[in-house]
């Protein structure tokens, strides 16, 4: 009974905090939209419009209303999924976003898988063999990951692995000949082509995905490995590790079963943050690799002063961040029984 009440209270608190964060997000994007020196009316009527036409357009767009009223209208539109129309594509921004976002998700997920699959084991090994070869390598890799700009790595990667060695496919998601060969279901090309049984399309998509995913993966690997290392070092000095060894467990079991379980909770946060920053960092990578995702879409919108599209994209990234946070909050109690009641001791 008490547990149910506590759980309900926790849920309520979670919903409230999500709602508050979302309001903050819309407020910030609204303010940015009003502050930037781009006149949305001019974008519609053109620079040479007569003053009367200009004023009429301005009134039609609701820009002569008080700011508070404008904000409420804006909020209502967003809640209805109405982000306005993109000037460049002439389509509703939401339609555009739903079309480009899966490409970014596919790239980010692939990068995250590489980062997790290598980063966690490397971080654990670096912690258990402190000062050893793997530890040094992880340190070097982290330094590399932090200091190398992703666009430079992308360009050099394309030069070496695509232009010189020909190991991977070039920019874009697919070769021109393969485009539009599979019906779009999830928008994730690897998945869609597999569902359609188009294995050559899948191979081509994978060849295109490999290099950008590897570069983004390397960068997230650097962060994940470093965090895993420091979490694990913290656990290895705990008394329960000594006790586990005193009862005769192998070091491997102590580290990979007892230790890893205890770093799972902080790692979930790191993983969520990494995924979020991969989406955010997509602008640079997608530009270098001509990857038709959210980042490239936002870059094009920015350069063309297409504010509806830019703000729509910003809100989408913000919503994904909120969603990731919510997900980690919901995962905590599953991984740590002490977080169950909400009353953390």
């Amino acid at each position, binding site marked *: 009974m008490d547990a149910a009440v506590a759980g309900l209270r926790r849920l309520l608190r979670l919903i409230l905090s999500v709602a508050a964060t979302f309001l903050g997000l819309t407020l910030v994007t609204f303010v940015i939209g009003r502050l930037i020196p781009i006149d949305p009316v001019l974008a519609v009527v053109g620079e040479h419009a007569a003053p009367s036409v200009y004023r009429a357009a301005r009134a039609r767009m609701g820009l002569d209303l008080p700011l508070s009223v404008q904000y409420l209208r804006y909020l209502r539109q967003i809640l209805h999924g109405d982000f306005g129309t993109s000037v460049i594509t002439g389509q509703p921004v939401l339609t555009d976003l739903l079309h480009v976002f899966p490409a970014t998700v596919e790239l980010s997920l692939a990068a995250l898988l590489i980062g997790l699959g290598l980063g966690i084991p490397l971080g654990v090994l670096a912690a258990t063999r402190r000062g050893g070869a793997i530890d040094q390598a992880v340190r070097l890799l982290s330094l590399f990951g932090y200091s190398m700009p992703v666009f430079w790595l992308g360009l050099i990667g394309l030069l070496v692995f695509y232009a010189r060695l020909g190991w991977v496919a070039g920019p874009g998601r697919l070769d021109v000949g393969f485009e539009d060969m599979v019906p779009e279901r999830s928008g994730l090309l690897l998945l869609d082509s597999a569902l359609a049984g188009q294995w050559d399309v899948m191979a081509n998509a994978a060849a295109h995905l490999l290099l950008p995913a590897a570069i983004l993966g390397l960068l997230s690997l650097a962060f994940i490995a470093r965090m895993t290392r420091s979490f694990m070092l913290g656990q290895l000095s705990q*008394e*329960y590790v000594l*006790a586990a*060894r005193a*009862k005769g467990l192998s*070091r491997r079991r102590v580290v990979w079963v007892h230790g890893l*379980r205890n770093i799972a909770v902080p790692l979930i946060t790191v993983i969520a943050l990494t995924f979020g920053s991969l989406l955010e960092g997509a602008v640079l990578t997608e530009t270098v690799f001509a990857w038709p995702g959210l980042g490239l879409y936002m870059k094009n919108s920015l350069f063309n002063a297409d504010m509806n599209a830019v703000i729509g994209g910003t809100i989408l990234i913000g919503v994904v961040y909120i969603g990731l946070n919510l997900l980690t909050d919901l995962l905590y109690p599953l991984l740590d*029984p*002490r977080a169950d009641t909400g009353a953390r001791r």
Partner: protein
Amino acid sequence: MSEILLEVADLRVTYPGEGGDFAALRGIGFALGRERLGIVGESGSGKSTAGRAIMGLLPPSARVGAEVLRLGETDLRGLDEAGFRRLRGRRIGMVLQDPKYALNPLLRVGEQIAETHRTHLRQGRRAARQAALAMLESVHIRDPARVYRAFPHELSGGMGQRVMIAMMLIAGPEVLIADEPTSALDASVQRQVLAILDEQVRARGMGLLLISHNLHLVRAFCDRVLVMYAGRVVESCRASELAAARHPYTRGLLAALPDLAHRRARLPVLARDPDWLEPVR
């Protein structure tokens, strides 16, 4: 004292450091039979180091040397990690100070007890579970099935320490090292835990090495007492004869104990003598 279970002679532990080596143990020796042997001494005197050196649990930087270091017939000198692993939990166990930290917070305590059984006896999950439930019962836990499923944070300190004892005894070791097993507990619970330790040690005919800074406790509970100072044993006597101890450090410690019957406004301060750092003649 009949058969010798654990024999230690001239056990030395040093940590190499940049400003010269630090000697944590400067040659201690004792023999443990089926008895309760107390080791007392202040913080940093090397009590815990001794216990961990015997189990091979010191950090890799520690250099361990001994003239004799024997568990039954097994020579522990130069034993590798795999060799120690077979002994730990199976032939020699260790109870740590605070069950709040010494149990893995994310694993059910029953599973942690069963894990020792599975590691050493390899009779499968069901057998390990049954053995763990029986073990919980034998350390006087009333509802073993419920406690088996509990997480460490759901248990009181006394319950946690019983779980710890169960975890270390389930594979039937001959020797148990208890490193400050009651220091983190309330006074009333301390006695219960000690009684359980005592009962187990007697019933199983084990040797117990009780490490403590509490003179009263060691005197009341143990058969024999070793007093350590600065990495050496300065006094070794029967617990009942501790009052007649000769070493000035032991005498100083005894004099510094408060006594309900004779109230004193001021307790004497231990006057340390550099001579104590010299080998005992």
